[in-house]
């Protein structure tokens, strides 16, 4: 599997990462190198093998339904570049 320049631009757009035209060939090369590395996995025959979700067989841990968190609005917005009255502020998005 490999990506072309169009796919690189498209992935960048979906992730809302600004990529200049000059950066595209470089990123394309990096992505293809990663994909080629991961591609080695397809050499292993996994016919009839269930995907492994955990190293040891275990059940997903579940929480009891109690309110045990929250009420930390100061902390939640502390790192926000822009905030007001405990709201995060982002450049206007209107559909």
């Amino acid at each position, binding site marked *: 599997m490999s990506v072309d320049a169009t796919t690189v631009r498209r992935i960048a757009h*979906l992730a809302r990462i600004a990529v200049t035209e000059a950066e595209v060939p470089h990123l394309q090369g990096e992505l293809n190198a990663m994909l080629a590395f991961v591609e080695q996995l397809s050499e292993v025959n996994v016919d009839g093998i269930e995907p492994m*979700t955990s190293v040891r067989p275990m059940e997903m841990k*579940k929480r009891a339904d109690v309110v045990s*968190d929250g009420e*930390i609005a100061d902390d939640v917005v502390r790192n926000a570049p822009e905030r007001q009255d405990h709201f995060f502020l982002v*450049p*206007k998005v209107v559909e």
Partner: protein
Amino acid sequence: MSTATHKLIKGATGDWEMVIGLEVHAQVTSKSKLFSGASTEFGGEPNTHVSLVDAAMPGMLPVINEECVRQAVRTGLGLNAQINLRSVFDRKNYFYPDSPQGYQISQYKSPVVGEGEVTVELDGGKTATIGIERLHLEQDAAKLLHDQSPSMSFVDLNRSGVGLMEIVSKPDIRDAEQAKAYVTKLRSILRYLGTCDGDMEKGSLRADVNVSVRKPGGPLGTRCEIKNMNSINFIGQAIEYEARRQIEIIEDGGVIDQETRLYDPNKGETRSMRSKEEAHDYRYFPDPDLLPLEFSEAYVAALKAELPELPDQKKARFIAGFGLSAYDASVLVAERESADFYETVLAKLADQARDGKLAANWVINELFGRLNKEGQDITGSPVSAEQLAAIVDLIGDGTISGKIAKDLFEIVWQEGGDPRALVEARGMKQVTDLGAIEKVVDDIIAANPDKVEQAKAKPAAIQWFVGQVMKASGGKVDPKAVNVLLKTKLGI
């Protein structure tokens, strides 16, 4: 059960059929969020019901709320659906300020609940069966405010991460009435189960509506999705508008673009939401932070055993137990509060078997009628279930006539009080000793020989006498007894 015929729309080239499917998002009733311990309570101060998990701070890990799982399984059981003992959470990737994670945790290939079905009630006592495709658990998104500043959007994460059940119907719905009936029934089932409060104004229940049109029985057309509908009436209006819009385009030789649209209730029209946007590419993949959701057959069986009586079962019991009509039974069970009120009346009745149906008539006609007129709902009824049961008892055992009962109802509505005591205190008892009214009957017969002749020739004319006697007695005699007495006296 008679199967519904659905509405077709007349176009210039003949009849068109609508094909409709709904995705309903129902907020799970739980105290805390799907994957964090923050509160789900509505209307907190901005970002107060938010944990560092909901804010997607680095290193935070989701841990599933067992109550949300339980509620999803119970809902699946209420929809007669297949419960999947193993399901998987996936990441639905998108970039937008309503999701600090950059993805929504949802279920894509393996939902917790599979196929089921819902029977909906339509006008004229008809029903339709609507298939359920699936139900899955997912996170709600944050709320954005766009009107606070000209250049910035304000983000409140309080809703972010609240558990939602997305309930997807099969494209079995064929007109607006069926769509409205489906949402109404779904809401009713959720509220009986207590798995979603169904409050559409607060957004606890909202629907995306997929509409396409085709020639009856023909191949499927291209669909448009009307997003985020939070009123059952608007759903109906939006479908009607959208179907006509599509028919017009096709009949003018155009093609329908598959797109997302919004309904504007003020203008009564739908409009395109994103005209130029490329097709969604959510790049779903299994969430590596969460193991598959697994539970046992025994867990499901235990939840099934504890399910409350649902509207369809309650309706059947009312019909079988008290001889209610299917329509009356549907009216009573539609809202859980109404059904509970009627059940309380039943429990207080002296003779349920005798007066169960009479009680239903009084709850529906007198009480609901009056509440509607006053714009009140059952929870604020000035007449309690106990008082209404007493009035019904008094009619049932012959203490008062139906006519006097309406006066009594009015007094109880206005002034309150114990109906039995009121009947005593105000002399409203029905005269059961016919000897006392025999003289009245004799006098009326003696004074109206012409009417006597009429009644002898045409027995239906006896009603005139009944009316006269009722009037003379102030409505306090039993019309049936008067009828019998008159027949004897007149020899008919």
